[in-house]
């Protein structure tokens, strides 16, 4: 990703807007009693577009902002989201995205990874209470929501960050020459 001041401003707006949207909208709506989690999808999409460093840094930033606004211990969400963004970026650097299904499927899988990561951080910090079996159901439904959200968010971000995407320029097809008389 080519980072210019303009692109950096867009990235900051995306991160801040995403966190505000999550806290003010997605966390407060429920389908099947489960709230969608936009933030892993956002971080995964940025990782898929920009690579490991973009994924890790935006994951860390989203996590810090989230922890600040929710007055939670700083670092927990950052750790999980930076790992999630890094893995998405690693996929982008190792494999080609041939199918339109790849981003949503990755969003689904890595959201499940992120939600399990949040749980692992909690257990690491010492959760001394019972854990309901409903957690598993909630995690699976969140992953399905991530699948649904994955494609539009990936496309939207690709559009917003198009000038900064290296391969977008490299693989862009040359304009077809006009054939006179054809």
């Amino acid at each position: 990703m080519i980072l210019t001041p303009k692109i950096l401003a867009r990235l900051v707006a995306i991160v801040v807007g995403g966190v505000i949207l999550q806290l003010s909208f997605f966390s407060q709506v429920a389908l099947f009693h489960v709230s969608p989690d936009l933030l892993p999808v956002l971080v995964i999409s940025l990782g898929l577009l920009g690579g490991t460093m973009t994924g890790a840094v935006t994951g860390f930033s989203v996590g810090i902002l989230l922890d600040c606004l929710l007055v939670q211990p700083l670092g927990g969400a950052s750790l999980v989201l930076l790992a999630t963004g890094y893995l998405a970026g690693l996929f982008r650097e190792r494999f080609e995205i041939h199918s339109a299904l790849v981003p949503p499927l990755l969003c689904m899988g890595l959201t499940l990874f992120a939600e399990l990561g949040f749980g692992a951080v909690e257990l690491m910090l010492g959760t001394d209470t019972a854990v309901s079996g409903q957690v598993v159901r909630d995690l699976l439904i969140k992953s399905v929501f991530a699948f649904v959200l994955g494609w539009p968010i990936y496309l939207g971000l690709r559009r917003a960050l198009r000038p900064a995407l290296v391969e977008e320029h490299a693989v862009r097809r040359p304009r077809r020459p006009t054939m006179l008389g054809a």
Partner: protein
Amino acid sequence: MYRKQVRRRRAVLALLIVGSFVLLTITYGSGSNGLQRGVSTIFSPVQSVADGALKPARDLVNWFDQTFDARGRNSRLQEELRTARRDAVGADAALAENAQLRKLLKLDRSGAIPSGYTPVTGRVIARSPTVWFSDVTIDAGSGQGVEVDDPVVNGDGLVGKVSAVTGGSAQVTLIADHSSAVTAKVVPLAAQGVVRPNVGDPGDLILDFIDSTKHIHKGQAVVTAGWRSQEIESDFPPNIPIGEVARAPIVEQEASQQVHIRPYADLRDLDLVQILTGGSRG
């Protein structure tokens, strides 16, 4: 060149990971810090505006969820209605018992507040996205007299307590949060215990450490105990309704000294809450 780039990437990654662990170690269990208070102060007006602007969209999505839910509940409610009709014969006795319970609890479900507390109304403007934390942010803070550890209720019962405060907003840790523990008693038995969450299922709380000789039954009310010793006392005033006993198998009561409670307040769908400020906590 390429190696240098890889090395630099690894260094940044290591820095971020180490940074996360350091922040976690420093801030865990220390409440809110200056950074969080500053960020909250800057963003709470933005969150309030976003909350107001997005309310119609939220209501629409939640309407779908509630409609699906209502369809599922319909058959169960019809069965409950049949049972209720059968029980209507004893309604007078139940009403008398209800009046006694209300008197015992000194509880006015229409919204009376324990004496010595001043209620401050707040609206939920943000909510934690993960199933592991049950926190909400409200648009009332120290500017309105809200302090850390103030109890928070809504029209149905106990919701949680304030865990962090900024000038214009406050963080409320719900009773379904993994860190929550509320001393409570079952009425009219007066069996006491500690209400703890069942992480991931805010509709199911556990009343733990109860006296196994006092058998508790389904449907009995659970209220805050509000105990007080010479130097310390509970954060919650006594007799705030928490919920009703949903499941109380004798085997579980005797073996684990616990029963399951369904909270009166719908912790998944909070909008307006009241913070009980002041009080006699010392």
